[in-house]
């Protein structure tokens, strides 16, 4: 059985926003990846950024900066 890990999920309003975030993350060495939005999270465009839970603080700061069209941030076991 696959072991689940605690992750920080970042949702976006549009797939374009999600792709833009992936580009941003690549440029700034932010760990994580795009994944389909887990069924436990109903919000968002369908694609979200999934990062290790340790990144929650950094991702929260990015949302607060309000420059990357982040819709919401969740903590989930995936």
């Amino acid at each position, binding site marked *: 059985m*696959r072991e689940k890990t605690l992750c920080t999920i970042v949702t976006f309003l549009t*797939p374009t926003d*999600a*792709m833009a975030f*992936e580009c941003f993350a690549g440029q700034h060495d932010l760990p994580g*990846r*795009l*994944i*389909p939005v887990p069924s436990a999270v109903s919000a968002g465009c369908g*694609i979200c950024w999934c990062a290790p839970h340790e990144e929650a603080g950094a991702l929260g700061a990015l949302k607060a900066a309000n420059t990357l069209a982040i819709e919401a941030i969740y903590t989930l076991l995936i």
Partner: protein
Amino acid sequence: MNHEREIMPTIRIDAMGEPCPQPVVKTTRALQDMREGDVLEVHVDNETAVENLLRLADNRNIPARSKKVAERHYLVAMQCTVPHEKEEETETAPAAGRGDLVVAVTGRTMGTGSDELGEMLLKGFFFALTQLEPLPKVILLYNGGAFMSAEGSPVLDDLKQLEARGVDILTCGTCLEFFALKDKLAVGSVTNMYSIVTTLAEAMTVISP
């Protein structure tokens, strides 16, 4: 006392210089006429052909071994046991649910319309595959799909995880060669058209993103 039977050649196939999948096709034909205990020697000139032949033997429960004879000369020896044992098992085996799922990935994108969107969707597809229970039996990668198992692939970690959990990751050798990826295969093994068709034909369900 040594119980290991000495392997003596009874049938020899020279497939040197034959393009994929001819060595496998010739071998398959030869196996049909073989009796238990017969030995088949196949001579080929590349490692991909060796892998394909060993896979063919494994699929049919035929003991096989290979050795490098010289530069660009390999020998695969098969000793015929009970012919087509696995095929008979397959025909009589009860339905096994999604355990017989085969995933065929044919390109670098999922769907058509926008390559950028398609690449992102495909990454999501592979992640979702890792979450699937039960997992697919085989993932076939051909044409642009061959990039998925090569160095630099954005889904390499997913494929490695799937392989570690028992999923066969098979990439088309012709495709790897065409895209100059032959030396960059980073997960799974190489397959050929003969094996691809057999895998697709025997699958209970095939999905293609």
